């Protein structure tokens, strides 16, 4: 079969040759060129992936790790739930009483300013949904249905949607407690209506964050203080700054940490409040394993398990930092 293209007599072989050369050139453009090319085709896949991803996240949210409950376990849990519900009712009534005192007695006073709710984090939250995943299972990219038209840009952090309230009334739209969310990734490709994020366990992801060591009264731990070894207490428990990278499998890895910090499984990896992109303490993951570092003798590697359930991820917030610390009009983060 022969075709005429731009006055040149063309054949399928010639078309194939041209296409192979094009593919070779785009390969040599590297990851930067790849991001631009992928961004141009987001629209073709974003619109029809929603239903499929809904089903996928529903199925993935079923945990296969949990062992089956016995009849006794179920009975104990039911009793425990009932007891907790009673305690919750008591606490709710106490909160209501305190609210009455705060709002009715000392409204607008210095007392309210001192003991009232925290000021908002200077960020805007863009709600988005995961509408498609990567084709190949070697990366953790996710396509989101919100893009630059809503204010998302490359580098913006993405969190789960955390919500916590003691109020039994309708909440304002996009009300969220950022500190109750978990960091799940970062936007790396942005187009008008779509964005692609790399999740925290993707090989391309890295972040400078803090390790917060838990204090267990039963098992106190020794750490290096300024010039001596001493017991870790609330007063001297400073966060440990680390660089965490996605391991391309189940979580993140922090390499070459000094043993003197005595980081143990159960400690928490959190974002730095001084981070301009996400000026709040948001949990990323929990230290799952501490192993001797192969690359750095005498030091340890930390294996971090993400807090969020990444395979079933569906509803997220893209966090857009605001320069001036002002409360967003249609969103609120505490």
């Amino acid at each position, binding site marked *: 079969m022969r075709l005429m293209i731009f006055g040149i007599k063309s054949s399928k072989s010639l078309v*194939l040759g041209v296409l*192979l050369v094009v*593919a070779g050139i785009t390969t040599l*453009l590297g990851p930067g060129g790849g991001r631009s090319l992928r961004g141009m085709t987001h629209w073709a896949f974003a619109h*029809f992936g929603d239903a499929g991803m809904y089903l996928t996240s529903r199925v993935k949210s079923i945990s296969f790790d949990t062992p089956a409950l016995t009849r006794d376990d179920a009975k104990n849990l039911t009793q425990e739930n009932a007891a907790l519900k009673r305690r919750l009712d008591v606490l709710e009534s106490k909160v209501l009483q305190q609210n009455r005192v705060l709002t009715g007695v000392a409204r607008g006073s210095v007392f309210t300013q001192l003991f009232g709710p925290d000021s908002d984090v200077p960020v805007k939250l863009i709600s988005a949904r995961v509408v498609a995943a990567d084709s190949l299972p070697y990366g953790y990219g996710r396509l989101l249905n919100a893009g630059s038209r809503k204010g998302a840009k490359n580098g913006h952090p993405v969190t789960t949607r955390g919500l916590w309230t003691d109020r039994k009334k309708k909440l304002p739209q996009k009300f969220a407690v950022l500190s109750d969310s978990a960091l799940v990734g970062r936007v790396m490709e942005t187009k008008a209506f779509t964005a692609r994020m790399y999740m925290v366990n993707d090989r391309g992801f890295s972040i400078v964050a803090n390790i917060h060591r838990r204090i267990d009264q039963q098992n106190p731990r020794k750490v290096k203080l300024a010039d001596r070894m001493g017991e870790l207490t609330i007063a001297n428990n400073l966060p440990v700054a680390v660089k965490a990278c996605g391991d391309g499998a189940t979580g993140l890895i922090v390499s070459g940490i000094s043993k003197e910090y005595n980081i143990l499984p159960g400690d928490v990896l959190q974002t730095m409040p001084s981070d301009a992109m996400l000026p709040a303490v948001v949990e990323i993951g929990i230290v799952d394993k501490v192993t001797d570092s192969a690359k750095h003798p005498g030091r340890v590697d930390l294996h971090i398990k993400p807090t969020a359930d990444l395979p079933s991820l569906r509803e997220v917030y893209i966090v857009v930092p605001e320069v001036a610390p002002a409360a967003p009009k249609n969103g609120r983060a505490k």
Partner: protein
Amino acid sequence: MRWVGFGIFAYLFVMVQMTLGNILTLDRLAMGPVGPDFLVIFALFIAFNARDVIDAMLAGWVLGMLIDLTTGGGGSCVGPMAILYSFVTWGAFSIREGIYSERALTQVIVAGLFCIITHGLWITIQSLVAFKLSWGGYGAMLLQVFFSGLYTAVLTPMVYFGLMLFRSYLIDSLPQRGGGRSRR
């Protein structure tokens, strides 16, 4: 080749791969996720049924490019899978006369090899051009490739059989003797 039908099926396959295909992905393994590649099976179907090797290679290029454009994790570059799919489709087309391509066992073996070769070379090219991988990380990814190849191979007969039902929408029917020329 019936390119309109092929285009529709290619789009459907890539959408399934990006969404519902994730249900089948085993993503809690220590070595990393392992999942099937449905587009390998589609490319194999085209290679075993196309009437012209150039058609098969063009179809392979399109399917490979779709994978490249829908895989962004790790900061991968676009293009290598299009080239690899083209050449491996050519390879599958070339050997089809020498094997029993209608047999499920043959399809399983060829699909597994197809997947392992394309994905293995893709990982190698990406680690040279885009990924920053240690030797250990590269080895772990090759292990993922191997098991993904096995997984794809196991699913091949079922998907291949499903595609056979729509063969007439994808592949030109064989011409009648005489090639349609009028006889005198």
